[in-house]
Structure formats: structure tokens, C-alpha cells
């Protein structure tokens, strides 16, 4: 066998082992060591340790534990409850007010925490029963909670874009600037969908009885000031500091974490237990993500030394795709990868394989990254592997079936696809802000 063929073998074994379910980080390191030893003998050891140290001293990834920490603190500070009740009364005059409030709460809380599962389960307990009790359509309510909960990995400051930036060598600042409008656009499309369907068929989301929404303006204002604005201010400050170049993403993340601690204190929820829990969970999740990087960077070094990248490029070159065909194919593959894999694995392991091709076809890696970020939304929502749907099913009342939840997710998957088509047709949605700012 020639070296490139060995490289393909390495990729093949890797895929088989993934399917067997062995921890991916160690699979990657082991394959890198084994195949690297074959390709270059003892030199593989310094290579491995250099890649490990490369992850340890990477100044982009510093923000990963910090944003996680901020997320875990916000998650435990009880802001969700206040946020939802406030937005619920604030949105009372809008059609489908509960659904719109739930969407807005999900989007905002998810943006601050970045943890899909937590948002979906918490909102599933808090907002879902309220919506059902008010006579809202089960499918519509389920779709709102699941789709809304996933927005946090797209709308900056999201961890996914940091991982993409570290993988693709694209500036995280530019990625944040690029993802801002597409993120708002998707959230907006969700709202338009919900309001639109309710206008066509008001039975889906009956108007709330007057006494439930009859809150004096002063009270609403006070509620907004104590729940919505502090969190909105925190997110805006973190994001603004990054976008206007006042602080690096990791510095802004540190300030965000400090702000989250302050917020938890203000709500009387700061105590040693929640601090401990947040610290330990941060350590575990950071270790999971960063060891995946150690594995992936070692693996892809050996893969490219063996010449595996060229083989993949030849395959694609032989297909004679136009850039747009390539783009569609790549997004389709990532869409399919979303079934067996989680987004962190797709970004850290498979994006490096696509990147040389992205450059080959003359596509801006920044633009590609935003498309991928949108695309990954679907991996949480598309049956049969839709994680968000399973989270909701786990806590929903027993008479809500998984099929109903799946059916509720699907329209939102179409909204994501519409968003991707819009983004492709008008790349300015993503590229305008980074171009203006930098």
C-alpha cells in the first residue's frame, strides 16, 4: 500500500471505531501514534507532545472554560423563571404571546448558557405545561421549546464558533460578527412562523384570559428591569466588547463569568454548592472538548503527512463539482453526520477534512463556518436522532408522544433550511458586519 492509501485506511478505522462507541479523543490519539509510528518512526512522539502542548497554550481556546463557567452559573441563578414570566406579560398583546415569549426566553437564555439540553429541559418543565394548559397546540409548543433551545449554539457569544475558529484558523471575532445577523434572522423566522400560523389558525394558540395578562404597565416595567435587562446587558456587554475590539474573546468571557457571578449574587442564589457544581462541570466539559482537540490535531497531522488530504481532494476533484454543488454536498454530509455525532465532534474532527476543499473551491471559510453553524441546528431537531426532542420527551407529560414532538420540530427544520438558502443567496447577511467592522 502507498502512504495515501494507508491514510485512507486510518480514516476508515477511525469511522468504524466511532461507530463502536469508544471515547473518541483516545481513539484519535492512538491512531495518530500507531499510524504516525509507521509513517515516520520515533518522530511521532515529539509530534504528539507538540500537538498536546499546542492545545494547552492555544489562546483562542482559553475562552472555552470561561464561557462554559458563565453558562453553568447563569443556568443555576434562577434567571430563567423571572425571564419567562416577564416576557410572557410583556408579550401579552402579540398573537401566540406565550409561544413568542417562550421563544424569546429560550433564545436569550440559550445565548447566555450555550447548553442545549439544560435550556430544553428547564423550559420543558417551566413553559411547556403553561402552554398546554392555555390550550396551545402540542406540536407547536413542542417545536417552540426544542427549536428555541438550540439557538444558543448559533447566536454569539457561542462556544461552537470558538471551536470552529480554533479549528479553521478563522478569527473568532469575525465569526461572531458574521453569525450575529444570521442568528437573529433564524430567531426572527421562528417567530414569524409561529405568529403566522396563529394568524391563519387562531385555535393553535388561543388568546390568554384577560385576568392572566392584566398586569399594570409599571409592574411590567419593573419586571423587565430586574430580569430581562440585566441579562440582556450582560450578553450585550460581552459581545460588544468583543465586536468593538475592546477585549479579546477570552477577556470578554472572563468578564461575562464575573458578571454571571454578580447576577447570581443579586438574585440571592450565589452559594458554595452552586459554585462548586459549576466549577466541576466546567472542568469536565472543558477536558472533554480540549482532549478532543489534542486527538484531532494529532490525528490530522499524521493524516496529512500520510497524504490522506490529497486523496480526499482527488475524490472531490474527480466529481467535477461546481462550488455551489460542493457547498450543497458538504452541507448535506454535515447534516447527515449530525445524526450519529454531536456538534462538537463534527466541528473538531470533520471540519478539518473539509477545510482544504473549502479553500480549493474558493469559498470563504468564514462564510462556510456560518453555514455549518446554521446547519448544526438541524442535527438537534431532525428525527430520528433529534436530541432536543428526546430531552423534551423525557420531562413532558406522558400523553405527549415522541411523534408529536418530532412533528413539532419539522417546521422549524424547514425554517433553518430557508435561513441557509437566504444566507447563500444574500451572503451579505453574514459578511456585511465583519466587513464594516474590520
Amino acid at each position, binding site marked *: 500500500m502507498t502512504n495515501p492509501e494507508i491514510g485512507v485506511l486510518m480514516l476508515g478505522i477511525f469511522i468504524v471505531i466511532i461507530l463502536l462507541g469508544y471515547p473518541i479523543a483516545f481513539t484519535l490519539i492512538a491512531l495518530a501514534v500507531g499510524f504516525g509510528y509507521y509513517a515516520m518512526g520515533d518522530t511521532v512522539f515529539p509530534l504528539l*507532545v507538540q500537538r*498536546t502542548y499546542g492545545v494547552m497554550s492555544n*489562546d483562542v481556546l482559553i475562552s472555552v472554560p470561561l464561557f462554559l463557567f458563565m453558562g453553568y452559573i447563569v443556568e443555576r441563578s434562577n434567571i430563567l423563571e423571572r425571564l419567562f414570566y416577564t416576557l410572557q406579560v410583556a408579550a401579552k398583546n402579540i398573537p401566540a404571546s406565550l409561544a413568542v415569549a417562550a421563544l424569546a426566553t429560550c433564545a436569550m437564555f440559550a445565548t447566555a448558557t450555550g447548553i442545549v439540553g439544560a435550556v430544553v429541559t428547564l423550559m420543558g418543565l417551566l413553559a411547556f405545561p403553561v402552554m398546554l394548559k392555555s390550550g396551545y397546540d402540542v406540536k407547536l409548543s413542542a417545536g417552540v421549546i426544542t427549536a428555541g433551545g438550540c439557538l444558543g449554539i448559533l447566536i454569539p457569544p457561542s462556544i461552537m464558533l470558538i471551536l470552529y475558529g480554533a479549528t479553521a484558523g478563522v478569527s473568532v471575532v469575525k465569526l461572531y460578527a458574521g453569525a450575529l445577523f444570521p442568528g437573529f434572522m433564524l430567531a426572527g423566522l421562528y417567530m414569524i412562523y409561529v405568529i403566522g400560523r396563529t394568524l391563519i389558525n387562531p385555535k393553535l394558540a388561543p388568546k390568554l384570559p384577560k385576568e392572566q395578562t392584566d398586569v399594570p404597565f409599571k409592574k411590567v416595567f419593573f419586571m423587565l428591569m430586574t430580569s430581562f435587562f440585566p441579562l440582556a446587558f450582560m450578553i450585550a456587554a460581552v459581545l460588544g466588547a468583543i465586536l468593538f475590539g475592546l477585549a479579546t474573546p477570552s477577556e470578554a468571557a472572563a468578564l461575562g463569568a464575573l458578571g454571571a457571578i454578580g447576577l447570581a449574587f443579586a438574585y440571592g442564589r450565589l452559594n458554595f454548592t452552586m459554585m462548586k457544581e459549576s466549577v466541576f462541570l466546567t472542568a469536565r466539559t*472543558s*477536558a472533554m472538548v480540549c482532549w478532543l482537540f489534542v486527538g484531532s490535531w494529532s490525528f490530522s497531522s499524521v493524516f496529512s503527512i500520510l497524504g490522506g488530504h490529497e486523496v480526499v481532494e482527488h475524490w472531490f476533484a474527480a466529481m467535477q463539482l461546481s462550488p455551489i454543488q460542493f457547498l450543497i454536498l458538504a452541507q448535506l454530509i454535515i447534516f447527515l453526520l449530525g445524526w*450519529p455525532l454531536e456538534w462538537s465532534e463534527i466541528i473538531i474532527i470533520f471540519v478539518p477534512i473539509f477545510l482544504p476543499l473549502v479553500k480549493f473551491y474558493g469559498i470563504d471559510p468564514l462564510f462556510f463556518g456560518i453555514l455549518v453553524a446554521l446547519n448544526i441546528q438541524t442535527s438537534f431537531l431532525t428525527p430520528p436522532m433529534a436530541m432536543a426532542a428526546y430531552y423534551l420527551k423525557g420531562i413532558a407529560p406522558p400523553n405527549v408522544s415522541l411523534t408529536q414532538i418530532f412533528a413539532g420540530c419539522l417546521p422549524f427544520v424547514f425554517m433553518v433550511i430557508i435561513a441557509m438558502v437566504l444566507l447563500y443567496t444574500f451572503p451579505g447577511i453574514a459578511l456585511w458586519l465583519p466587513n464594516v467592522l474590520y
Partner: protein
Amino acid sequence: MQRFLLAIDSISVWVGKGFAWAVLLLTLTTSYDVFMRYVFRDPTAWGYDAAYILYGTLFIMAGAYTLSRNGHVRGDVLYRFMPVRWQAGIDLSLYFLFFFPAVIALMYAGFDFAKLSWIMKERSAASPDGPPLYHFKTLIPIAGFFLFLQGIAETIRCIIGVRTGQWPPRLHDVEELEKQILEEAREGKSGSEILGEMGIRDAEEVKK
């Protein structure tokens, strides 16, 4: 045997949790650095180095702790549905075929890497009078050692799993919120009970 397993777990957990606090330190030092820069126009010289050293220390030393919680991500589409004996059998063979060679390579390579750094008395080049880096680099073989140790415990768990068809228990620890919530829901608790335990009022109470 169970005591031996839990003893190894506690070592990994203790090390991991100890270093986990680096994130709080990282939050505070980085915020202090920004504060000094904007308020006093006097940025610290050590801010940049301190940040990546704290971050790197955090994740590399939490590797074994994460392993002890079965927290390293798996592609579990098929794995999830396999009987325990299969899971344990696959894991067992791959611990020997993949995990130990990988971790031993990391220890071996990391040792040489750290030794060289100690000999050179290497310091960071990112700032004048940069902090020494040899302690930081020594963490690679040390992290490898703790992973190796935890790997032994995991291997024994697999052997027990293959034999008995059941996974031996792990130490209790904090879990992701969604896991906690789903677990409580499975135990039959109602939504408002779960929310209540977290100190969140449900809709009925708020109305009152």
C-alpha cells in the same frame, strides 16, 4: 475490588476537582488584567501567560477525572443500544489496543519534552521576563500518568461488566442539569416538584 476501583476514582476526582478551581482563578486574573488596563492604563505583564497556563492546566489535569465520570464523548448511536456485556467487551479490547498505547506514548513523549524544558530552564517568550514554562510542560506526563491509573480502573470495570453483565457503580458526583432533571422525571417526580427542588416556582405559584 469495588473499594480498589473507588479508591482510584477518588484519586482522579480529587486531582481533577482540585485543578478545576483554576477556572475561578482564570476568571479573576483575566478580569483583573482588563480592569488594570482600562482603569489604570497599566496592564499586567503576566496576564497573557497566566491565562493560557491556567486554562491548559485545567483541562489537561481534568482528563482523568472526566474519564472517571465516563465523560469523554463517544459516538454512541449503536453503543447505547448494546447489552452491557458487548459494551464492556468492546471497551476492554480497545483499552488495551488504543488507550494504553496512546497514554503511554503521551507519558513517554511528555517526559522527554518536559526534561528538555527543565534543562533549558525555559521561560515564556510572550512577555519580557516571562514566567518559567517547565512546570507547565511537566503536567503532560503527569496527566498521562493519572489517565493511565484511571485506565486501570476502567479496564477492571470492563472485566466486571463482561463477567456479570452489569456496570459496577461509580462515585456520586454533580451531573449536567438536563441529566439530573431527566433522572428525576424518570423516578416519577412531577415537573413542579423538580422545579421546586431547584428553587424555581412554577406557573401556579407565581399567579398567587
